[in-house]
């Protein structure tokens, strides 16, 4: 069971290596309620691997992860209730319509159908998908598919929202409305961990960052370090 008092995310000494080498080396950070944390790094630096370890899609070699106080590898159901995740390449059942897909997600998450419907309608309208409910998921454009995955991730009001390049492919009005929605969720206590290559957006919107560099090196951009990084956002390791 998740703990309401626990931090949405705690990562301690996380280490992960592939055959090509170490990607994450003793990474430690936490995400507090209400904050937005950026996950930064060049292609292949390990952002998706880190998010994969957090969501239970990758097995860490060492270290601990706590989602709302629970270990995703010993209580996957508890961890699943805590997070809403939009991967870089979201999975959708091509044979289902958009509405069927969201109904399936709501039921799998144990949401009350009557309660979930208004929230689904609101999110569909917010992201400009109203009217497309009868479209098969395999017929959706890339952007519409990503919006569907976003709705599926937000439907159960998770305490931790994990976005892997999730703003890519969204039209500007939809992206702005999504950011406003995320702001509202943060004001209500949800936290966001966001991986993005849009450094200007990240610098303006997030309050802290974790910069991953090749070879498993990582830098926590906090306080003064974050302020310095915001003034000149880049993927180069900071100089202390």
């Amino acid at each position, binding site marked *: 069971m998740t703990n309401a008092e626990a931090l949405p995310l705690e990562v301690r000494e996380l280490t992960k290596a592939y055959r090509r080498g170490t990607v994450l080396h003793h990474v430690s950070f936490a995400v507090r309620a209400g904050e937005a944390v950026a996950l930064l790094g060049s292609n292949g630096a390990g952002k998706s691997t880190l998010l994969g370890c957090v969501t*239970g899609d990758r097995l860490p070699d060492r270290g601990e992860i706590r989602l709302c106080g629970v270990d995703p590898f010993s209580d*996957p159901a508890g961890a699943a209730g805590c*997070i809403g995740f939009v991967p870089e390449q979201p*999975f959708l*059942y091509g*044979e289902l319509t958009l509405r*069927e897909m969201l109904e399936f*997600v709501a039921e*799998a998450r*144990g949401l009350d159908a009557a309660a979930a419907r208004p929230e689904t309608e609101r999110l569909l309208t917010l992201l400009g998908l109203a009217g497309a409910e009868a479209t098969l998921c395999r017929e959706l454009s890339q952007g519409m598919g990503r919006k569907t995955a976003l709705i599926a991730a937000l439907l159960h009001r998770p305490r931790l929202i994990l976005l892997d390049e999730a703003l890519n492919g969204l039209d500007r009005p939809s992206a702005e409305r999504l950011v406003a929605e995320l702001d509202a969720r943060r004001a209500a206590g949800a936290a966001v961990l966001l991986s993005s290559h849009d450094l200007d957006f990240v610098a303006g919107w997030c309050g802290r960052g974790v910069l991953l560099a090749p070879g498993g090196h990582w830098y926590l951009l906090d306080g003064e370090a974050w302020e310095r990084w915001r003034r000149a956002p880049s993927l180069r390791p900071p100089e202390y």
Partner: protein
Amino acid sequence: MPSHLSLLLRLEARRLADPFRHPRLGTWLAVLLPAVLVLVGLWLAGEQARPDLASGDGRILFGFLVSAPVALQAYPLLFRPADDAFLRRLGVPGGASFLLRALRLLALALGVIAVALIPFVATGSPLGLPLAVASVAGLVSWAVALWAHARAADTTVNPNYRPGLLAMTMALDRELVDAAPLVFAPIWPVVAGGMAALLAGISAGTLPLRVAAMIVLVTPLIPLAVRRFARATPRFSPHAGELAYAPPPGAGESELVIGRGWARVLPRRAGVVRARDAVVVDRRFRWAGRAVWPVAIFSVLALVRAGDDPEVRGWVTAACALLLLAQAAAVIALGRLERGRLRWIDRALGLRMMDRLVGRWATAFGLALGVAIPVALAWAANVPAPSAWWWLVGAAAVAALASGASVAAAGR
């Protein structure tokens, strides 16, 4: 868990109904073509493809034939469905997912049982004994496959797991040694299926009793398997994803070379498609090429030693036909891979449908020639009244059907 299982079953029914709700030529061709080829092949093989169930050897062979597809498909069906990570992130319990996948494997086992009976139906033989033997082999191998694979998954992610002596024989690859329980897991259901088939048909008198006893005996394996998989899944499922990692190809391995070998006779655009398709098939469906040499060598040896025996010729024909079907499945899967994702590349390059069809046919035919040429030569030299050229015609025809289905499956 029951509510999640019922949800997953409803989802499965919805997905299975999709080809009827939204019929597409490519989907139907990709499903029906291999099915029709198998049915027709086994029907025509008739007597030759019908093991002698009166002998113990025949029953064991029949059991192996039924249980092998179940055992070999257990890993991809149980551990590698595309929605695995998605369902875990939704909080669907591992036990519910495993039960649904177990039902998919059961459906496959029932399909194999039905297919195994075709030669008996074709020759008008009594169906009682073959049905009982095939059923018991299929169901026992299914239950044992569930248990063996769940146990292997659990063992693989157990921090205290130490590879045994057999695993150490694969010491060339450390990751393979660590995954040894999974590598050896299919052996259990194959052996169990063969043994069950042997015991089921010992004497006709107590056949129903023995069939029922064996099914009752293996039934407790199912809840055991569910429990073990549910325990293993949080750590095993991400591990299984990582096991699928394919290292980059080595130097000189399946290089993209346009206009090499007999492909020189193809029109240039078709030659480009063939070169690309050959590399993709070799890297994505390597098994389609790797299975060629064992089948070709055993077939040639069998024909050299006993080419005048009709039964041996029947088995050679069946083995080669199965290989050609597997290769056809790889070529069709190549088309499905392109659907909605890579098809635009060919459109952007201005490759016409005919270029794609000819290029893909050349790829499929090239794969098939690996077995068709040696078998045709051995057939011509060792079989009385040889009709070896039929091998080449058959390979070309299967390649044509497979490439047509593949291009249709890729869509416009």
